[in-house]
């Protein structure tokens, strides 16, 4: 996303063509680097783990965030897929709680079947509490 913004800014600069493409060139270069590096890094730091009583997530390059969602606190679950994700048959699991900051916790970039599987697993775990 950051890379995308930088890229767009670069294009705008190129249109003005004041420094004759030097800035836009470097911007595109850095943007391109970021565009390839950031997702890789982001992917590397993205972890999720379904334990018996909670869903634990770790993510973030600059700001490392660790979230623990007790399964009992989950209100409902979504599996969603946007156009790009559908192309690669990927999906994301969205876990909703009643909280404020962590009211929806997203696990992106799952293979679609994996997302579905995770959902049913979480659902089963929740149902077990309900008994």
């Amino acid at each position: 996303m950051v890379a995308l913004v930088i890229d767009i800014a670069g294009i705008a600069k190129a249109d003005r063509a004041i420094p004759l493409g030097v800035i836009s060139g470097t911007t595109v270069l850095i943007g391109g680097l970021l565009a390839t590096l950031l997702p890789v890094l982001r992917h590397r730091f993205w972890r999720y783990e379904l334990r018996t009583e909670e869903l634990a997530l770790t993510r973030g390059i600059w700001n490392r965030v660790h979230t623990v969602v007790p399964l009992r606190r989950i209100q409902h679950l979504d599996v969603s897929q946007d156009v790009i994700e559908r192309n690669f048959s990927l999906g994301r699991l969205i876990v909703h709680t009643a909280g404020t900051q962590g009211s929806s916790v997203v696990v992106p970039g799952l293979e679609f079947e994996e997302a579905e599987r995770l959902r049913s697993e979480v659902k089963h775990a929740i149902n077990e509490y309900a008994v």
Partner: protein
Amino acid sequence: MPSEGVLRRLHPLTLLLRFAKSIPALAIAILSSTAAVPDGQQRFQNFIMLGLSAAYAFVAVPLIIAHFLKFSYRITPREIIIRSGVFRRRKRNIPLERIQNVAIERSLLPRLAGLSSVKIMTAGSAEAEGVLEYTSQSVALDIRDLVRKGSQVIQPDVAFSDTEPATGQLLVDMPLRRVFLAGAFRFSLVYIAIIFSAVAYAQQFNSTVEQAVMDWLLSNGGTNLVMDVPKMWGIAVFAVVLAIVLAWISGIVATVVRFYRYRLRRMEDKLVRSHGLLTLQEATIPLKRIQALIVRSNPLMRAFGWFRIELQTIGYDVSRRGGNMAIPLARLDEIAQVGPRIRPFELPESYEHVSPLAIRRTFLRYVRALIVVLLPLGLWLGSAALWGLSTLPLLGVMAWLQYRNHGYVVGADTVYIRHGVFKQKIWVVPFERLQTFRVNGTWFQRRLGLCTVTPDTAGAGVLRYPRVVDLPTKAADTLLEALYAGLRASIAGSGT
């Protein structure tokens, strides 16, 4: 008495009140549109005025009448049915057992007419699901009574002579003196801003006030006053002091108007709160919707040993000011006495501190903010902006104060988190209200081995929420463990 299933309308005086309410809008529309027309085009101005008045008479007035005629409601033993809408008809069924809350509001005009507005709230959304504006006072009380009893049969012989419920345990009954005091402590910069902008606005249109002040000064202090620098300073100081005093007084007035005759009662599993001088407000807050208690104070209040308690609730209209108030002003021992009747807790004597490195981090954050302010100032004033750096020691002290005032305590069934100096908040969060847990560390924090722990709750503010900032990683893990264990224990205990 609302007998079963009878079709009811709003009180006829509603029409009159709605007309009265719509007139300011018309006035503003006329004023603003005529002001947009350059002077000297009198005919054009008249034309606009005529057009707007016609639009009001032939569109707005019929709409108000139609809206009134098309609005009806029905109260059955099981539900309240509201039909409304002129162009798009809507029928809304609100099951009585789903109603969480009935708020009765009587602002000045309706009060003079003996009317109330009734807001019916369910768990579904933060806004009122059904608004009856306006009904007679007796109908409003009947509806409230009905909902309090749940889906039970209405008992016509239970008479409510006053707006206040006759039963329940009185938790707070603020004498007028106490309300004044609460206002005196409620010193807000907002009022200063409003006054300053009002003055600026007034000056834009005419300088008569300025002229009057100048005249007065000239008559009192000789002729060469304008060039007299110390006197100019005197005027500036005087203006600031005046603004502060005005802000202080307006804060008191606003508080007295809002919290006059403030009462808080506990009725079984609900809190009932009533207050107001011009607008009488009564609200019912189910205890199970309360997510956390917030003990708030500022340095002045703390110096005199005063605090106030607010509630963090879900699905309740907290956007309105005072919407989350529990006790506007109380001593610590009163809080210890009354607070636990809302939800048992015991404020800790001392708090666990976060890492002292937090002082450094806070200080650097302040310095960064200072630089952001000083850089543009430097472009404008040149090197004079460097004087801004003289505030550095002050920032250091502030950072230290922030550290001293930040802390947490994990109690037996509650976690206490204290944050802030000028607007200090102590969050009292029961374990069973915890939702998710978040531990995060920015790159700076991780370098120092620190992180931030955020126990998430429902209904917390978007910007202000309980969290423990700059805790050593190890302590953070311990805290997380303790909170999670607490949550699990409370769930296991309650069996939900």
